[in-house]
């Protein structure tokens, strides 16, 4: 059924008045006739409202740093934070030298009560010593958890001493869980330091091959990054670095030599993209490898940017080859999916991107939202200057480097840049609202209460979200697919990913298991008889 402002108000009316006032600003129904529709985002979740959001530590260590495979990541804090970010995000990694890959390791200072009382710096120093002795890595990260900032441990000072002692980089991230209002704060903290301390620290001045690019905001969940790299390398691009899926410290140091930065997850990495442009003059392109048409369009946009005949030819050849291969397969699955309705609620960018895949399968997205996005992810980057800072966002450092005197170089002429900007999303992201249909619902920081209410009214056929609400939704008899971890499947990016996604989503609909929910005795009376004129026979 179509959703109306009246129905929305009925849901909101069930809230206590203060909550209602707040939540009202986080939800709107898309109306294309309006030039803009403002949403409130990246603000505090009200205590007690069951949210899917996590913390700054999760965004910093869990999302951005964790996937870098050849650094040892030490978590300074009690054991839990380190433990939960261990192998739970499916950021796959491969190393030619397996002794230089720490992806399956989880290292924590395991702070005890005495460390809280007397300070944990000495313990952290000792843990670094042991890590150097056992693993001898080329670099280390230190991530702070809540108590670290509260007790005033100076991780930066510990890191500095260790750097001098061992001659390797030891990066310190003040990503205490209480900072900001969600994981988003942690992304920013991680971005700042990777930019300030790692990117551009190698001696490399020129990429060893033509068409060098960085792939930013691709975390290689379920092998997504590998599929994207397969396609890009097939066409003739040279991938300098990926941030940060299957990421490598050595590669990230070289990121300055790329001639174009691709931004997949806008939310988590747009800071680095902007900083790279400022420091080295490298433009960034908003790409999307989720969805067949989105992938095709992205590849054509990239080719247009580099404007090389051979590259354009290769691009079209690869597109033609891949489409011929996968379209017949997808068509099979489309028959199962056509006409279905979806809710799509994911973290920062997938809530938008996966709507493409749904559309290609004939599935309409009725409701979408992000867990920790900012207004620009909904409304487009043009609103950035109008976003007000508040007490929470003010506390997150905003780093912006100066142009690198030696290495700053315009990759294309300003005229050409302007010309391209009219055609392709260079330095531009239009946000989720732009692509959504009129009448669809956009919700920021969707909570448990709203999840139940919207499901009752709109009765979606599938709900893509995360692990915490997966089984809530399935208990209602609705298939739910995790789009954070892909239900341990994948890849879902690129051409092969589209096929895998179509297969997995179809499986959700086609599974005979849903048919058994109602037991036979519920539909059949215990006593069977017929009513005669005299009564029951």
């Amino acid at each position: 059924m179509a959703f109306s402002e009246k129905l929305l108000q009925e849901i909101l009316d069930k809230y206590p008045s203060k909550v209602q006032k707040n939540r009202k600003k986080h939800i709107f129904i898309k109306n294309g006739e309006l030039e803009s529709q403002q949403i409130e985002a990246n603000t505090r979740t009200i205590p007690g409202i069951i949210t899917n959001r996590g913390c700054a530590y999760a965004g910093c260590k869990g999302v951005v740093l964790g996937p870098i495979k050849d650094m040892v990541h030490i978590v300074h804090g009690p054991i839990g934070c380190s433990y939960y970010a261990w192998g739970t995000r499916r950021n796959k990694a491969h190393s030619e030298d397996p002794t230089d890959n720490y992806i399956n390791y989880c290292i924590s200072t395991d702070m005890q009560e005495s460390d809280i009382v007397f300070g944990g710096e000495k313990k952290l120093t000792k843990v670094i010593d042991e890590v150097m002795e056992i693993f001898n890595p080329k670099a280390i990260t230190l991530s702070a958890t809540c108590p670290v900032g509260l007790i005033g441990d100076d991780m930066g000072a510990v890191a500095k001493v260790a750097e001098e002692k061992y001659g390797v980089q030891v990066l310190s991230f003040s990503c205490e869980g209480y900072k900001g209002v969600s994981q988003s704060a942690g992304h920013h903290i991680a971005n700042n330091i990777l930019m300030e301390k790692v990117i551009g620290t190698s001696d490399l001045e020129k990429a060893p091959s033509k068409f060098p690019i960085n792939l930013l905001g691709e975390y290689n969940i379920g092998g997504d990054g590998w599929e994207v790299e397969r396609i890009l390398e097939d066409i003739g691009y040279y991938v300098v670095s990926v941030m940060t899926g299957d990421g490598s410290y050595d590669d990230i140091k070289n990121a300055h030599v790329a001639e174009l930065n691709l931004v997949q997850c806008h939310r988590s990495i747009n800071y680095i993209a902007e900083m790279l442009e400022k420091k080295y003059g490298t433009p960034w392109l908003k790409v999307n490898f989720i969805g067949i048409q989105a992938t095709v369009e992205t590849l054509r946009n990239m080719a247009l940017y580099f404007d090389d005949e051979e590259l354009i030819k290769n691009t079209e050849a690869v597109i033609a080859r891949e489409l011929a291969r996968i379209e017949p397969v997808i068509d099979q699955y489309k028959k199962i999916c056509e006409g279905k309705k979806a809710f799509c609620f994911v973290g920062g960018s997938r809530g938008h991107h996966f709507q493409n895949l749904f559309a290609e399968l004939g599935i309409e997205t009725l409701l979408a939202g992000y867990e920790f996005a900012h207004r620009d992810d909904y409304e487009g980057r043009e609103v950035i200057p109008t976003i007000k800072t508040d007490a929470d966002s003010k506390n997150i450092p905003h780093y912006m480097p100066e142009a690198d005197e030696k290495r700053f170089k315009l990759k294309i002429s300003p005229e050409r840049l302007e010309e391209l900007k009219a055609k392709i999303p260079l330095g531009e992201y239009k946000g989720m609202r732009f692509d959504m249909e009129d009448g669809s619902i956009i919700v920021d920081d969707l909570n448990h209460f709203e999840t139940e209410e919207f499901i009752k009214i709109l009765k979606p056929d599938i709900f893509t979200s995360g692990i915490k609400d997966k089984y809530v939704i399935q208990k209602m008899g609705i298939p739910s697919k995790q789009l954070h971890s892909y239900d341990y499947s994948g890849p879902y990016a690129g051409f092969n990913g589209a096929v895998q996604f179509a297969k997995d989503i179809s499986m959700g609909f086609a599974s005979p298991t849903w048919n058994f929910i109602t037991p036979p005795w519920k539909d059949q009376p215990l006593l069977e008889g017929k009513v005669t004129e005299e009564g029951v026979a």
Partner: protein
Amino acid sequence: MLDCTPKEIKERTSGGMINPAKTCQPIGAMYAALGIHGCLPHSHGSQGCCSYHRMHLTRHFRDPVMASTSSFTEGASVFGGGANLKTAIQNVFHLYKPEVIAVHTTCLTETIGDDVPSIIKTAEIPEGKLVIHTNTPSYVGSHVTGFSNMTKSMVSYLSASTVAEKKEQVNLIPGFVNPGDMREIKRLTESMGIEYLMFPDTSGVVDSPMTGEFEMYPEGGTTVAQLKDTGNSKVTIALGRFASSDAAELLTKKCRVPATVLKTPIGIKATDDFLMALRQSFTVEIPKELEIERGQLVDIMTDTHYHFHGKTVAIFGDPDIVAGVTEFVLSLGMKPIHVLTGTPGGTSNSLTGSFEDNIKAMMEGTGIEANIKSSGDLFTLHQWIKNQPVDLLIGTTYGKYIARAEDIPFVRMGFPILDRSVHSYLPVVGYRGALRVIEMISNALLDRADRDASDDDFELVM
């Protein structure tokens, strides 16, 4: 796999963990609180804690795990979380309508020293509703400690001695086990014809049936009335020293209910001990059906002893589970040569006892020289195994990396199991559970033997 782990063991003195075998208190408190009927666990701290705990519990049980959070910001960390908790309590009762909110703290709120009981006292709580709390500093103990603390708080908040003569009923504290285990412990008690109160009881909560409707508060869980009545029981049997003895001890002090603290009843000896304790406390004979179950178990143990005897095993996990499993594999004639828990080990003069001493005592007379460690990590366990290989590894999902690295058959047991399903529905406790453990161990060993056999040695009958 785990190629950065060297064989050579160098002593580590930092106190840091590499590949931990424990997590922090709050998740245990959250799990225990789910065992109260109509209860919404509440995490007083940053959002990330609540999110991580719900994520992990959901992955283990594959069922909804509902909990709310105080959603701390930097401001709340500076000025205290009183306002956050009070707002949360108000919103939770308005919106999610639980009978009980069970608040647990986090390292954040413990470090800043939020006085949770005082905050609760000034919170708006609707009539007939309850807010209880427990302190779960993440920098003390482990998830097992958190479970124990929340269970203890159920006693301190609710248990009351209100009758002159104690009732003919037993309090069963099952410890940090799966709902399948809790059901089995109840079934054993029922077949003895003994009235019982089990708390916490997550059966019917995190193994709820598919009905096409989501119930925020499923049918299971110990009711508040039952929790109050635990003070009137004749005796408490606490299963699992680390998870259950504190609550039992408090019941003795607060309501004069005598306690028997036993091992988690994994394996034949521990199950015998449990049934004998019930038998002695209530002067009832073990029913025929349980004697038959025991006989069937012994039958299988003797019939298949050659599959197990002399095989070496490494066991890790939570102390109560590891203690039970170690005792049982010894009963099967196996050799547990590496035994490790991540949880700090307890002291020998407490009800909990010392983990290391308890395991050492089991080894007495067996001639086995075992590595035994509490507060250990999986890096240590892996190095032990590199130096003294084993035929079998038993532990949580996290063991799969070591099992692959060293190519060892692997049996998943304990919490968490994130990569297999059904485990939380079926017991490992009791005689039936012991049969299941045997099946798991023998499948792992024999599948491996089949895999490794040459065509010439490949056998139909084993």
